[in-house]
């Protein structure tokens, strides 16, 4: 559609347009967050209390970490329904390692992460080699993880009261005033950001989501990389599990169901396309913050929990519709 005489000019225009679009996407999501924040600070005098803001950040941490992992899977055009109950299984196993077996703290934490990686690995193998649709593979894993958590824990919470220092992992404050859980979330986000944009894992995730067959024809071992991508996602699930256990200072085997949808919502609000190929970590972080801010603000305004859900649902529709409008303009 181009003649040589106009190609260069068009090229340049397109390039700047693209740059603007990327920025615009993040600016818009960020602006959304600021608006919600501003609204609640006017609506409630308690909202801007540091204690409350801290609460929001803490609430963001666990779903946020799960959303980071989910971003990779969604970038491939897949979906991960196992992050919620998977996270719980990781909490429970951390409990087994630390509270029941009395292993050293580091080993227990790494063990929790390893269980997460294992969950992801199995998801990846099922998707790649058994060719199960990601929805089915991770739905099955969601149930398996839920069941195993209950079986292993004997349906009772595992407490970490005797494991010295474990609760400090999330609640301690290396930076005074800022809980470690939040630091861990931001550090994890930084790692995820670099992984998505700068490593083969991220590049191939986006590539597979963009056109899986073309990626394969180009000589990328798509099946192997999918296993890697799901495993990376699983690592984040494991991290979420450890942080969750530390925050509650216990592993609650009944928890977890529904978290996966919150994580997916955060990813989607952040502008990642469920069709794959387009994803940003910054978007996911902002999406997770929006989800947590909203829930917190509505609660502070004494809006009943049932209505909070309704509000969150509406925000998801608005956020994704705004994204569609933006993309529509660009096309």
């Amino acid at each position, binding site marked *: 559609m181009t003649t040589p005489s106009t*190609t260069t000019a068009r090229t340049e225009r397109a390039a700047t347009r693209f740059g603007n679009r990327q920025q615009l996407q993040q600016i818009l999501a960020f602006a959304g967050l600021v608006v919600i924040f501003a609204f609640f600070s006017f609506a409630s005098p308690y909202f801007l209390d540091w204690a409350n803001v801290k609460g929001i950040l803490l609430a963001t941490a666990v779903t946020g970490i799960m959303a980071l992992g989910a971003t990779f899977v969604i970038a491939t055009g897949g979906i991960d329904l196992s992050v919620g109950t998977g996270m719980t299984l990781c909490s429970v196993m951390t409990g087994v390692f630390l509270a029941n077996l009395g292993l050293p703290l580091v080993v227990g934490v790494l063990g929790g992460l390893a269980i997460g990686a294992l969950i992801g690995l199995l998801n990846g193998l099922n998707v790649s080699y058994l060719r199960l649709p990601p929805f089915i593979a991770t739905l099955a894993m969601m149930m398996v993880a839920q069941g195993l958590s209950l079986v292993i824990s004997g349906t009772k919470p595992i407490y970490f009261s005797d494991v010295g220092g474990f609760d400090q992992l999330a609640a301690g404050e290396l930076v005074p005033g800022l809980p470690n859980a939040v630091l861990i979330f931001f550090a994890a986000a930084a790692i995820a950001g670099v992984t998505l944009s700068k490593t083969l894992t991220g*590049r191939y995730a986006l*590539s597979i989501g963009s056109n899986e067959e*073309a*990626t394969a024809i*180009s000589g990328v071992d798509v099946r192997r990389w999918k296993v890697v991508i799901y495993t990376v996602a699983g690592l984040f699930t494991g991290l979420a599990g450890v942080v969750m256990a530390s925050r509650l200072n216990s592993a609650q085997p009944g928890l977890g169901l529904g978290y996966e949808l919150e994580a997916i919502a955060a990813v989607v609000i952040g502008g990642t396309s469920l069709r794959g190929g387009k994803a940003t970590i910054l978007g996911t972080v902002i999406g997770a913050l929006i989800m947590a801010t909203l829930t917190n603000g509505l609660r502070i305004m004494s809006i009943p929990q049932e209505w909070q859900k309704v509000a969150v649902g509406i925000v998801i529709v608005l956020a994704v519709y705004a994204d569609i409008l933006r993309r529509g303009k660009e096309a």
Partner: protein
Amino acid sequence: MSDSPALLRATGVSKSFPGVRALDDVHLDLRHGEVLALVGENGAGKSTLLKLFSGIYRPDEGAMELDGAPMSPSGPRQANELGISVIHQEFHLMPDLTVAQNIFIGREPRRAGLIRDDELVRRAGVLFERLGIPLDPRQPVSHLSVAGQQMVEIAKALSFDARVLIMDEPTAALTETEVDTLFRIVRDFVSPRTGVIYVSHRMDEIKEISDRITVLRDGRYVDTLPTASTATREVIAAMVGRQLETGVRPGAASSGSAPGADGREVVLSVRGLTTRKLLRDVSFELHRGEILGFAGLMGAGRTEVARAVIGADRSTGAVEVQGRAVRIRNPADAVRNGIGYLSEDRKRYGLLLDQDVVRNVMLSALPGMTRAGFVRDADGRRVAAEMVDRLAIRTPSVTQTAKNLSGGNQQKVVLAKWLVRDCDVLIVDEPTRGIDVGAKDEIYGLLTSLAAQGKSIIVISSELPEVLRLADRVVVMCEGRVTGTLVGADATQHDIMELATRFGTDRSLVTTGDSA
């Protein structure tokens, strides 16, 4: 000459798919330093043969050799490592990644595990410089036109240190200047240690670029002919197995039955069509039973006119259908008003690749094929079978998945879809792209007979002979404006080119004598 080993050789290769013997005991010899054209009708097995070389398929029987050594690549990557680079008929690009990221996918330069995107961009820049391709490596591929994407595929193939370059209809989407660029690239590539296999349906290109021509028919090897001493007629005869008249305007048939503008009822009138991006005040009328050609260089805005008329893009201006002013806001409105559009980009807008022929053919006609809200599948199968017959679509059955058809046959399925819908106005955009000479003739015949039945047709085409042969009148565009309308019988390629290069005022004095 015969005892020095060929650069690339296939002996007695066969390949079957369920219900189809795509290749049956086929031979091919690529010599050092030559460009070998590979020709055959749609579905003859050309792409399948190339996919054996690139390791996408494994032959059921037969052997392949590279420089005398047996070869059986296990996949595209290994083929690349052996020095075989293939540009496939279907694009294999990742639209969300940038041009540079696409070219070097699977080979990203890294430092400490991190991809060096700056280095990617630099390498792509160097490559484009060498090949003379004016593209920005940082641009996402989704922003490129079909031609731009084709250039990316070409650059990607040449980014490997290839000895054998294989191209499957690389020019189907290119303009003349881009074809020139490609041919220059091919000539630069050929050396005593390299060779090129070139698949095309365009005989003039084959004449120009190739040294020898290998002909396939129905999955079988027919002959290999030296280009210089073989007439196009003979090549075509070998392809289709009979003599065929081509390139002749079927005077009586077209101009006799469709007198064109004079006195005929206007079925579609477009006034002052303008879009934000490109179109400026485009006006034209389409009469009953007329074939109206749209000519112009790539980027002149022909496809944009079609998209604006059917409501796929936003525009201002007045559209009247059968004398009634209508507002067409989207393609569904267009179909309701009896206007069908056959896209130039069949992969993106024309086909449900994962569905079978029946589903594809029925898609736009579904509302007329239901009873009490249920789809009547039996009817669909019957209609699809009729179309397969009428258009000579080569497929083992109507339940074959569209993606498994050869490129040309996919194009016919798209055409069938709109024929079934029975629109009064049919806009066909590059209707014979990727279609073999025989089938081209059939499609010309079909369009002419549709016009004779009182349908009105707009033909957008980059091939001037095609426009001249089909159209009663030709609208010529340049830079989003209509620069003239010619009456088909009197128009010449020269007239069209003159109008097609009538750029804005500042350039109107430039002579265009060399363009015919």
